[in-house]
């Protein structure tokens, strides 16, 4: 079936029915004729009075007064109008309180970097002493030349030669996995790759989904990186869920793991053990079974996001198992890796059912 056409998700409303009873009621009410058609918003069985539903008490919209009490401190997503102490929401989102700090986390927004976040980014610009990296945030992050492990096997000083050949480490378009090291006052992030876990990405596929900031997408969790077994004859796969919503799924390469073990010998040795492959842009040979499973896993991640699910280790692993089962039941067997459209919906329905 080369093409599937689904009915529109967001249907334009039919022209308003010129209902006689409706216009009668308009005449009897005196507050202007505008009313909202809730049925067309796709809201199932609206509660009689949603304002009273305890689930919704922390839902605020821009301009909503949260508290006039000056004992609270305002955090992200709020502001205090001049000459008042009124903490007011500036976003549509959910109130979160941490001790005395009140903030509003948006229903959806771009990724906001925080120190320690593991991110996947794409180099978009090379400058004299730093790279500018797209991490899906409001600003480009920067990766200074001084924040990477230089190749050479010895702890060495950064030289002018390194600056001149900055492109041999990372060039435009390259994908890197890095950690947010520091934040500027204006929200800009500085990254570093001074660990064996970080560096240039290869042997795999990239997927961009929305990141932390509310709504579906990658969430901050205990583990953002893990290795999992491929089913149906595929080898081991590495999954990197960047907190910013950029996801990298690749073939697992043993060499890196060995060096990770060596890392424990001592932190000072770390630099010496810089993986030979850190700056390589040559893929290792990958067998087609592993490639297929990598594609399947990528399908799982995009299906989760398309259907409004959170993406974390647990969901991805369960989703992958479910997808393998679905493939087994289908006509073409494990070759069937398509998880778009209705198949994705099936998948997430099965996951939510559990």
């Amino acid at each position, binding site marked *: 079936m080369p093409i599937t056409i689904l009915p*529109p998700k967001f249907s334009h409303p039919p022209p308003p029915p010129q209902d006689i009873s409706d216009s009668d009621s308009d005449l009897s009410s005196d507050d202007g004729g505008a009313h909202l058609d809730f049925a067309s918003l796709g809201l199932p069985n609206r509660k009689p009075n949603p304002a009273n539903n305890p689930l919704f008490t922390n839902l605020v919209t821009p301009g909503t007064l949260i508290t006039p009490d000056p004992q609270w401190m305002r955090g992200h997503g709020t502001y205090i109008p001049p000459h008042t102490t009124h903490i007011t929401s500036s976003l549509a989102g959910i109130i979160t309180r941490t001790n005395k700090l009140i903030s509003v986390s948006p229903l959806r927004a771009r990724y906001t970097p925080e120190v320690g976040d593991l991110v996947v980014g794409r180099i978009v610009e090379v400058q004299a002493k730093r790279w500018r990296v797209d991490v899906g945030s409001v600003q480009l992050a920067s990766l200074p030349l001084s924040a990477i492990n230089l190749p050479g096997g010895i702890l060495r000083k950064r030289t002018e030669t390194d600056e001149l050949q900055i492109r041999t480490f990372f060039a435009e378009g390259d994908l890197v996995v890095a950690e947010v090291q520091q934040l500027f006052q204006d929200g800009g992030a500085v990254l570093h790759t001074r660990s064996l876990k970080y560096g240039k990405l290869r042997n795999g596929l990239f997927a961009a989904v929305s990141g932390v900031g509310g709504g579906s997408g990658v969430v901050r969790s205990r583990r953002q990186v893990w290795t999992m077994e491929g089913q149906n004859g595929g080898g081991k796969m590495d999954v990197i869920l960047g907190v910013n919503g950029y996801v990298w799924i690749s073939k697992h390469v043993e060499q890196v793991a060995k060096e990770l073990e060596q890392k424990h010998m001592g932190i000072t040795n770390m630099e010496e053990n810089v993986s030979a492959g850190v700056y390589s842009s040559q893929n290792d040979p990958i067998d087609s079974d592993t490639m297929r499973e990598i594609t399947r896993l990528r399908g799982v991640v995009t299906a989760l996001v398309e259907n409004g699910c959170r993406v974390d280790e647990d969901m991805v692993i369960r989703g992958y198992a479910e997808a393998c089962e679905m493939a087994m039941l289908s006509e073409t067997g494990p070759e069937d890796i398509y998880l778009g459209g209705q198949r994705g919906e099936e998948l997430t329905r099965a996951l939510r059912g559990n």
Partner: protein
Amino acid sequence: MASSQHVLLSPAELSYLHSSLSLTPPLRPDGRSPTQYRPLSAETGILPGTNGSARICFADGTEAIVGVKAEVEKTKRRWDDDTIFSENNHHQQQQQQQQQQQEGEEENEGRNNNDEEGGSSDWVELTVEIPGYRDDDSGTVFLGQMLSEALLADGGFVKRLRINRRFHWKLFLDILLISPPLSYPLPLLSLTTHLALLATRLPKLKSEGDEDPFFDDDWAAAPYLYARDPATKRVAERPPVTLLVMAVGGNIIFDPSKEELAVADVVLAVSVGDDAQGKGEDRMDVDGSNPGRNLKLLSIRTVDPPSRLTPPGVANAANSAYGHAQVVNTGANQKMPEARQTESEAVEGVWKPPRGGAKAVVMGALVQKVLVRGGVADEVLDALEGVDTS
């Protein structure tokens, strides 16, 4: 021709994509089969103020809206064609014969005026709007050209716009891409245009012959531009549709996403239409063993794939930042100009952009694949027919 937009991908990604797409069967990043389109949602008749409209959203979030408006316009005639009575036909035929002898502009004129059933290509005005791009941007103009040449290719479409010998409909097709162009929008725009034209209705003509036209006010009575068979409710002849196909390795892939385009060897935009001829015997066995419709090739354009602009990958052997020992001879490596690396032998796992032109065999195979009976084009047309256009 005009290049599809550039995407930024790393050499490792490009190499991976290329090798996974070159497998048999190819592994596409989103798991589709080689002939499969992205899932889409479609609806028509969304804008009551137009003669026909349609909206299509792909699952990846790209969305387009097409609106069709028709106006009555006086047909431009030549100086010697100022009478409309049949006695003049004789004169016209003579004229035509003379022209045929002279050759010259015979074809053009014949289509414009003398042919009783003919029409002119300027009866259709097609505009494409892509957010963030100027309307005179080369990419936008090229898209518009591809879409309109498919419509005008065989002159069959403009014939439908004829009212009588003095008047015709002028059709304005406005094609809006609502979302930012995430992938090359040609398939989306073509499908949406197709649907909008299917849903287009023109007011019912009440006047007769060559008098000034006037129309029935009743919209419900307005006939479709593409007439439905009253018995089966099916559209007899259908607007053209433009398919984007690409070849990579030995595989042919339909409706490529932007990542796939970035590693394409050849990209073609192929417009196909229903062939009106030979339909008679086909339609007989509509429900049974219909092997597919007769497809007619309307136009082919090559689209310059962005893969040619991508930087090549650097093999480990040539990478000064690779390995432990290499740093010693950094100096030597540094002097190695990049140009020499690009010309070096292909290394497994290293991205090498396609060079040179497309082979005629590949082009032939691509077109063949599109035109195959009961193939993708057929199924796309069938699926579009399933959309409610009433």
